[in-house]
């Protein structure tokens, strides 16, 4: 009975976390960025390492760039706020006219939970269609650390492994 109870609690927690991530995707796709910023903890940190073609035996050490090296993104909330402010100027031509974007978040799995924090892994697929025939797919794995705050969750740490070594999109102007 106790074991069953634990499994049910875990299932509910995983469902709650997934719901949070799906709501986040909606806010991004609906361009409700100010609301979205509220889902990020003040000590939020966002990293997207570069992926490199390296030998099989070097994968663990060299496939991804790390702290102190060049990444696509490695920043805190302050910079994310600036990016939101840039979009709001209406003169950020990379997203003006605005793109159509869908964030698909899937394979959501609770890796560990030591409340108030939880480690969650998922896959993402971000589809962007821009102006007419410009279409990008950004696909990969994501690792999030979430923290329960108030009645909801916040993202504390997000690391994203994009499955491309040469970025085939001209930019990364949408939040992935």
């Amino acid at each position: 009975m106790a074991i069953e109870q634990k499994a049910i609690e875990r299932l509910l927690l995983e469902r709650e976390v997934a719901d949070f991530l799906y709501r986040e995707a909606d806010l991004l796709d609906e361009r409700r960025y100010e609301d979205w910023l509220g889902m990020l903890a003040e000590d939020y940190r966002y990293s997207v390492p570069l992926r490199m073609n390296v030998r099989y035996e070097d994968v663990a050490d060299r496939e991804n760039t790390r702290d102190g090296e060049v990444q696509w993104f490695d920043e805190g909330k302050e910079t994310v706020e600036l990016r939101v402010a840039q979009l709001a100027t209406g003169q950020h031509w990379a997203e003006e006219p605005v793109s159509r974007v869908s964030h698909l978040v899937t394979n959501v799995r609770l890796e560990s939970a030591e409340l108030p924090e939880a480690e969650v892994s998922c896959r993402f697929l971000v589809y962007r269609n821009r102006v007419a025939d410009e279409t990008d797919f950004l696909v990969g794995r994501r690792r999030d650390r979430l923290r329960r705050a108030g009645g909801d969750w916040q993202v504390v740490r997000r690391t994203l492994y994009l499955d491309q070594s040469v970025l085939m999109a001209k930019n990364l102007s949408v939040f992935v």
Partner: protein
Amino acid sequence: MSTTTDSTTDTAGTADTTDAADTAAGSATDTANAGTEATPTGTGTGTATKAGPSTVPHSGVGPVRDLVDVARGEISREIFVNEEIHRRELEHLFPRAWLFVGHATQVPRPGDFFSSWMGSDPVLLTRDDKGELHVLLNSCRHRGMRVCRYDEGNTMQFTCPYHAWSYSVDGSLVHTPGDLHGVPQMKAAYDNKLKREQWGLVRCPHVRSYKGLVFANWDPDAPPFEEYVGDFHWWLDNLADAFDGTEGGTEVFRGVLKWRIKSNWKFVSENFLGDTYHGASTHASVEAVGIGPGGRGKRRHGERQDQGGFSRGRMKTSFRLGHGASDNLAYEVPYPEFAEADMDEYFKSVWQKRTERLRAQGRLLGGRGPATLFPNMSFAAGFPRSILVAHPISPTETEVWRWFLVDRDAPGFVREWLRRYYMRYAGPAGMTEQDDMENWDYATQASRGVVARRYPYNYQQGLGQELPSDLDRAVHSHHAIAGEVNARAFYRRWAEFTDALPWPELTRLAATDDRAVAGAGGGIEIGRREGDD
């Protein structure tokens, strides 16, 4: 427009559009392989350096110089969208120009390699066990497979996955007793008669590490790097030297940003060699929010208002050799204003060292860029300090690479601050550069139309206003936004290469610069800056 993911092979293999006469000329005068031990094969890799413009093939397009009217300041859109012109660039420009392939600090130890591109050709930058740098064509001499498909690493040898021919990091075929390496089944397949020494990886004949910046050139007739660069070396010096003036005191952060854009590569080179005209409109959003050293709400470069600001120093310098820079060499571009006191203190101290050291040597303090070394290496030596190479993929597609530089002995907090600033500023995730790509891509796309192509682009900024310079084979314009002075020189040089003028002629044409017009606003000393009077 090519939509293949590996369209570099696409563009390199457009043999069907190759004019027969041109190929014949290439074979007869083939010099591209002369730097290797191998016998030139004469299979059309020739640079046709002896071929005059009359042998330029026609596919409805005449000599490209007819499309570049620098006297009127009009340049045809064809050169940005046309397949045949793109093929001629790959054939006559990229294999004859000095190209940036990587930084020496990317291959610090023997056996280290870094994969790069020179025009349409994949190459490997390697360091051998004597510490020498090599640039090798990354294509097996047996059937052409890439012998290395890793971006970087360390190896004793490159072994082709197809038939296992093995090469050392200096390109020679590895000779190991017992045929464990080198050529498998040397006896059974070749009766031990294959001349290994003739079948090494094709080695680039000219490699020059300039303060750690590694350049290479395929053409044995090309002048030495220093002559190719001329007085433009001042800008390269500022890039490669530390902020405190220590010669070559820089290294690159690990990790090269690489991304594809649907733009002609020349938009990229042109943007950095002098186009300060686009800043106010293209980067309005980033100026509005402020991402620079000064912090929120401050200008994106964090310029010190008490010293006039960067824009005051943005006089253009334009070289007959095709290079161009956006700022004045003699204007003292100081360190920026930082929001953080420790950063301010650090850069104040290195700036003091810099001024003492360089003034004692009689050297100039300005020249931070942005700038472009002809044809496709752009850089800025200030904030951010970065190198960009625009690799041509097709007329309407480019792969852009960006490296970031940092002082080798910078303290940890400075390195980290700069790294984060570089990332939020530049590259496809950078708040500034994102908007550049939007413009280059859609400018290229909107120029492909049949009607659009009938109307040239306008390059009339500062036309006839070029002023004499103290620098050899260069002119100045003291207009802050007269970047088209530089663009006109770039495209004139581009046409001379792309029309296959031989190197002696290229050298002769660049020997003198007669652009400066006497009486065009009078002479100007290079230390003067706009608004001084």
